[in-house]
């Protein structure tokens, strides 16, 4: 379900007047699936391309060579992807560089060497996006292989400005990137989370034990599990301001990624959010009406009928045969189940003793002679 949500959101793009949705895919070292996050990245890439003909992707490749990505995809998709090659020569070391003309599909790959100059970077991406748009793809998604690599070359505010500008641009319909959380300060990670609308992170299923106390040997074997599974946490920022949290299991099999929903873990309710909660003692209108309809266990209700109040001594059948008496629900455990909620409210009154005259307990001052 999480995967479906992500793909759908990235594919749908943004509403007019909104910024494009952005997915921040985070990975961390404890999950030895640092490569697995890349598998998720590739998986998203292929699912985006394979769903529908309208989506096209501009891929900015830092981490792997562009040919690697091209080999992943079937040739039918080669037309809907444009690659910005930042892998081959990011620091412009090769003298007199020009786009290498290999024999296979060179037209999707654009070499970029001047990575320090971000406006140029932005314009290259937009150029490729326009290219794709001209070909008839109305939705262009930008995928950045790894923002960590970008941060090597440019300072944080400019990278964020670039991403925000991409989000605002009308040619780009959605955006996703990969970031390695261990290589940056928490401030940097939270800044990326700030500008994204979806945050997905991979965590290990089995945490590393505390070496001081735990029984190490037993727990290390369970760490094996980490190699095949991981926890996939997704945080979605919704349009109405609510946050949706999802947690699923990720399985990597034979190079393909499978998501499965985990049996519901009891979510820890944010206790610190509500320090002081009061009870609402105001009544709503419906509640007021219901209150007016409750029959009170008085001896006389004021409508001329004599009321018998069950005092626990008379048998059930006798009171049932008495037509003039109104039962005040004191027999609830025999007649009705506890969970039966009738429309009117009920008041159960059981009298103390038979000796008391009716209404004698009402007013102790009755015998005063004034």
């Amino acid at each position, binding site marked *: 379900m999480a995967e479906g949500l992500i793909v759908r959101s990235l594919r749908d793009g943004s509403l007019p007047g909104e910024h494009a949705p952005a997915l921040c895919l985070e990975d961390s070292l404890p999950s030895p699936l640092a490569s697995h996050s890349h598998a998720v990245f590739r998986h998203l890439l292929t699912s985006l391309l394979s769903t529908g003909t309208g989506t096209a992707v501009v891929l900015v490749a830092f981490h792997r060579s562009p040919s690697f990505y091209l080999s992943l995809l079937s040739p039918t998709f080669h037309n809907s992807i444009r690659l910005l090659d930042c892998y081959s020569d990011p620091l412009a070391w090769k003298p007199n560089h020009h786009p290498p003309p290999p024999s296979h599909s060179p037209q999707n790959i654009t070499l970029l060497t001047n990575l320090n100059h971000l406006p140029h970077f932005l314009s290259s991406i937009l150029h490729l996006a326009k290219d794709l748009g001209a070909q008839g793809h109305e939705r262009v998604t930008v995928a950045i292989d790894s923002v960590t690599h970008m941060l090597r070359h440019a300072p944080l505010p*400019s990278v964020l400005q670039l991403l*925000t500008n991409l989000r605002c641009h009308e040619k780009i319909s959605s955006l996703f990137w990969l970031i390695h959380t261990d290589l940056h300060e928490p401030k940097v990670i939270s*800044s990326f989370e700030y500008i994204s609308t979806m945050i997905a992170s991979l965590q290990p299923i089995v945490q590393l034990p505390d070496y001081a106390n735990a029984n190490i040997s037993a727990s290390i074997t369970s760490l094996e599990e980490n190699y095949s599974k991981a926890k996939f946490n997704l945080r979605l920022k919704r349009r109405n*301001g609510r946050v949706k949290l999802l947690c699923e299991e990720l399985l990597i099999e034979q190079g393909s990624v499978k998501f499965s929903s985990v049996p519901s873990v009891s979510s820890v309710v*944010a206790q610190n959010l509500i320090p002081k*909660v*009061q009870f609402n003692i105001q009544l709503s209108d419906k509640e007021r009406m219901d209150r007016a309809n409750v029959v009170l266990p008085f001896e006389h209700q004021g409508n001329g009928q004599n009321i018998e109040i069950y005092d626990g001594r008379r048998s059930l059948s006798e009171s049932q045969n008495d037509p003039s008496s109104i039962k005040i629900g004191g027999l609830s455990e025999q007649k009705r189940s506890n*969970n039966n909620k009738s429309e009117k409210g009920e008041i159960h009154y059981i009298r103390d003793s038979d000796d008391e005259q009716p209404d004698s307990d009402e007013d102790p001052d009755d015998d005063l002679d004034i």
Partner: protein
Amino acid sequence: MATGGGQQERPTRPSSFSRVSSSSFSPASSSSTSTSLPPGVRIGANGAAFVSSGIPDLDRILGGGFLVGSVVMVMEDADAPHHLLLLRNFMSQGIVHGQSVLFAGPTKEPRSFLGTLPSPVVQKEGLKIKHDVSDVQDKEKGLRIAWQYKKYFGEQTAVDSHNRDKKQEFSSDFDLRKPLERQLLNSQNVECISTQDAFDLSKLQNHCLTFVSKLSMKDGINSNAGRIAIQSLCAPQCGYFEKDWDMLSFIRSLRATVQSSNAVAVITFPASVLSNSISKRWQHLADTLLSIRAIPDKDLAKLLTGYQDMLGFLHVHKVAQFNSQVPVILDASTYSLKLQKRKSLVLERLNQAPVEGSSGVSYATSGSCSSSKGSLLDF
């Protein structure tokens, strides 16, 4: 340290609206000076001057509104955009009262934010007529009329009938679905600045200084109050984001500027993108500190009533106080943001959901200090 100095200066604020003497509450003197107050400013407890925040509930919670000369900081939540609701109401209130407004935002076109400002809800005619009637009466009966009409206004501090129609105008209800009229926005009083491409805050600082000096330039005529609204001051995409100490000194200088003038500054900032120590410093610099929290979906439905209508939580950390050493102690510090009839923003106290009848156990929270999952409440 500068913040320590700021703390000491707080009780004596030389803004031109407030008065130090406590005889301000006698009807004779207040009526003579009440005519000299510009619209939108009210004298409240301890002779302090308040402007409305645009949300009547928030004014009531803070004890009158935002203090003139104070800096209000709102800590944003990275997941939800509700701080914009507070900013919008604040700016609309200023524009409706004819006060000068300065807005700074981290976008290329901050002017477009003005298009989202709400317009005030039109008051019903019946209440208006009663105000005129009370005006006609003379002063002695004025107090009695005030008592009679108290039930229409709920609780309030001692305000005589002469000020009553001003009271109604002090804070208006805003309809978030209707945008503010164009001609109000195009007046000279509203300025917008973009902070996205700025590499340092000197430009913004100069703008604030000139804005505040323009406020006090009109001598003789009562200078109006001014409002400074800065959205997401430490947004990560701004060029000065890595310069922590520059941002802190900007806030300090803004605080000093605003303190001796008739302006109120509201700054929102995403606290999660700052490092812990810097974030604490920001929070200490605020006179009034509020924070917004987003609600995780469906998580708290068992605990609270009215959960579906809630947009988010508003938490009040600090409330500014002037001319008094007594701190403000609130009944509750967390409120829920709701949209009433989908148009106006209200703040409500949180109510616990009714206990499950059959089980008799409620998932009660036991305060912020306990870390357990919740205690069983047995009736």
